[in-house]
């Protein structure tokens, strides 16, 4: 995972597999950066995510809560279409943080 900081924003480029094990490290790194900078926007970029179980939903919800504390917002962007089902199931769409544009990935096997 890479973090990039703009003037008022942080983007976390999530990558690889997101599960209960890997989510812990991502969470700690994102939260440390957010607490330092207190940005108005935290962007979670999912384009590099190959696999995600419901730990990814916990990761989004937790960052949503954290950013709310600072009066900031979260945007979830570049969600690969194979993760759409999990996102839908989670009911996260009710929070209006999902960017509609979904990237298509070549069906690699």
């Amino acid at each position, binding site marked *: 995972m890479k973090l990039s900081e703009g003037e008022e924003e942080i983007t976390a480029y999530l990558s690889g597999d997101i599960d*209960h094990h890997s989510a812990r490290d991502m969470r700690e790194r994102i939260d440390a950066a957010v607490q330092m900078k207190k940005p108005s926007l935290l962007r979670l970029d999912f384009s590099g995510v190959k696999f995600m179980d419901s730990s990814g*939903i916990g990761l989004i919800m*937790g960052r949503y809560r954290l950013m709310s504390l600072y009066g900031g917002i979260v945007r979830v962007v570049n969600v690969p279409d194979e993760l759409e089902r999990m996102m839908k199931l989670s009911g996260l769409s009710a929070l209006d943080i999902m960017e509609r544009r979904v990237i298509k990935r070549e069906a690699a096997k």
Partner: protein
Amino acid sequence: MKPQNEMDMSFESRSSNEAFARCAVAAFLTQLDPTVSELNDIKTAVSEAVTNCVVHAYRDTIGKVYINVKIEENSLITIKIRDKGCGIENIKRAMEPLFTTAPSDERAGLGFAVMESFTDKLKVSSKVGKGTTVTFQKRLSCRVGNG
């Protein structure tokens, strides 16, 4: 009916084994030539069940997780994930979406809902103090002939 192929494995309930477990099950099933999407569904369901063992069944301890995978006729697969952990007091409640007993660990409370949605059939049996067995089934599209 006798399965066409069967696999058993066991490992310690360490979170680093979550990826190992879903990848091992997926590797066993590649002989059926599943689609990427089918394999992803199964990996997701396995990941949820194993995470439950790590986070809940053996909370604050390390125990063994047992996985049994059976391949039957017409690419019907049955996966059993068993632990000898604390057990579930109220299964109905545990299966409700968004219910979790580990919010501090940022669990979304979606584990069973995901398993239900990503497989064809889900069964949970549990005894407090004895452990839990989660069984799910999925029929794959079967692109290769049997055998």
